[in-house]
């Protein structure tokens, strides 16, 4: 299995805990794909704005050590039971401080994108966009009226 290329091992460990806490569960969404999600999020990091990229390791550490100051639990995020970790992260989403909200909103968006767009999840949802691609390219090739559209231009 490949390792994250852009996250340090310690940042990756914290992100793993975030994924385990917030990833969808139940209702047909129990695919064991946390590691794929982590790798996909890792692939996205170079595309983030420079400031967000630079601030991410610090943000992850704030999340890791935040349960004591923000949640009154003398533990670290990665050591918390999953439900408690989720409640803790929900607290960040509901925070009055915009920066706290923004950090967890951003991570949540990346995790959900990677999770729900995973081929096994799309299959489970019955969303067949990839099949449609082949269908629609063929449909267009078969029905394209080149005279009407002025091809070749």
């Amino acid at each position, binding site marked *: 299995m490949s390792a994250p290329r852009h996250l340090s091992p310690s940042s990756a460990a914290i992100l793993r805990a975030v994924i385990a806490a917030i990833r969808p569960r139940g209702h047909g969404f129990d695919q064991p794909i946390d590691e794929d999600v982590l790798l996909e999020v890792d692939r996205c990091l170079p595309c983030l704005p*420079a400031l967000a990229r630079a601030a991410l390791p610090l943000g992850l550490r704030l999340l890791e050590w935040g349960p004591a100051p923000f949640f009154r639990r003398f533990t670290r995020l990665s050591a918390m039971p999953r439900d408690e970790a989720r409640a803790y992260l929900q607290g960040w989403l509901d925070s009055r401080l915009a920066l706290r909200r*923004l950090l967890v909103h951003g991570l*949540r968006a990346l995790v959900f994108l990677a999770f729900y767009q995973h081929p096994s999840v799309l299959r489970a949802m019955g969303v067949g*966009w990839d099949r449609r691609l082949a269908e629609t390219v063929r449909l267009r090739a078969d029905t*394209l009226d080149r005279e009407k559209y002025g091809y070749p231009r």
Partner: protein
Amino acid sequence: MAIPAELPAEVSARIPERGLAYPNCESGRGARRGAALAADVLVVGSGAGGAVAACLLAEAGLDVLMLEEGSLHRTESFSTDVLAMMRALYRDLGGSMILGRPPIVFAEGRCVGGSTVINGGMYWRTPPRILERWEREDGLPEIGPRAMETAFAEVEREANPETQADDTLGVHHRLFADAARALGWHPRENLRNMRRCAGLNNCAFGCPTGAKQSTLVTWVPRALRAGARLSADAYVDRVLFEGGRAVGVRGRYLGADGRPSDRFSAHAPMVVLAAGARHTAGILKRSRLRARPIGRHLTVHPNAKVVGIFDQTIRPWWGAHQAHQIHDFLDDGILIGYAVPPPGLLAAALPGLGERSAELMALYDHMFPVGCLIEDTSSGRVVLGLDRQPQMLYSLSRRDTATAHEGVAKVCELLFAAGARRCLLPFADLAEIGSPDEIRRIRARPPDPRGLELMTVHIMGSARMAADPRRGATDPFGRVFDVAGLYVADASLFPSPIGVNPQETIMALVTRNARRWLERDVPRLRAARRDRA
């Protein structure tokens, strides 16, 4: 996580946009250190504005060099792998933020073809009332509906705006139109720049069927055929000046990881900025141009979305991106339309963590997201951030907040008329309603923008045209005031928001302006070149 799509080579070969030639185009990645380039005209950006400007100037015989920060991604490389496409085609993965009250999520393209590669393809002329206002109140000449007719006709020849074929419509398209009619509204069939759209709804991630006529498959290759050159992966940092006139630009090539690598400079007597309403203002500011209107008057067409949840199966992902719009309320500043994002994007915009998100997303096939676009009267600014990148600041006025509330209420009326059981709302303190009676709770809200979730894909006006240098950054034909040789050719030019999708307006304004430059400015430029020679 590539999603395999079985596409026989024989089928692909019958699609004219797959396999298009891009002569004279090279990536800055292979360029040499400290490269010094020269041309008659530099065009920065290859989106809706830049590609049109480059093409018209090249066809008039000028030596044009396009400098584009993004990479060249061809039609045949487009797929339904949403994240891979977002990494390739979007800036900031589509999650840029406009800071203010409330913060607004903003997406734009960063690739050859700019945002036209990822846009929905809606192709509407500027409403006549807007053009009349620009002429009458803003004092801009030759911009009324009659004067603009030839420019519209010219860009439409390339874009081919047409309505959806029946076999591209799914359940939700019909529900939308039927519900609107039942309410006494008049759904308009959408005009989209396409040649036989096949209804894949992948427009926001590059159109793999080649149907969408983005500048990537129209104006850019046409410009290249006319002799223009294109340098991709070339980020322009600032404009260079000599004796008060623009003489070129300076920038950095971008490496495979998207980070700046070697420097380059490019020289030309004519520099056209078409980097979009955020980055054109950023380049002007990094070039130390201090005129007050630069970066001001930013408008953003804020969008609020409502997700209707139905008992019946909708399969919202099946069928064209958007087939109808409601224009009945344009005079009140409200346009209603829809767009169905793939599950990952929709989930990111809906509430809930863990099981709560799963519970909602299990209903994806029963969801129908409908939105309203607001013609805003508020305005914001583009400023340079700590990293010297342009940052947008914007707060929604009480008046526009009230308009957004009314838009959301109307969208809920439509969704309930279509048979929705409940509507998920864009308000932090009112997450959903379950019956049409509750719509009055939306109308009764105080016009406070806090907690209102908004996004946008249209930004405009940050270097607007004006008759008076105190009111705009460029003259009525897009020449930057007080700097000879410097032009703007993108959405920054808009004197005001227009209330409909902007790409045709951008292309038509640039056509109008480029014709004027060719008539008045270019002969002087040619004479100067002859003298030098």
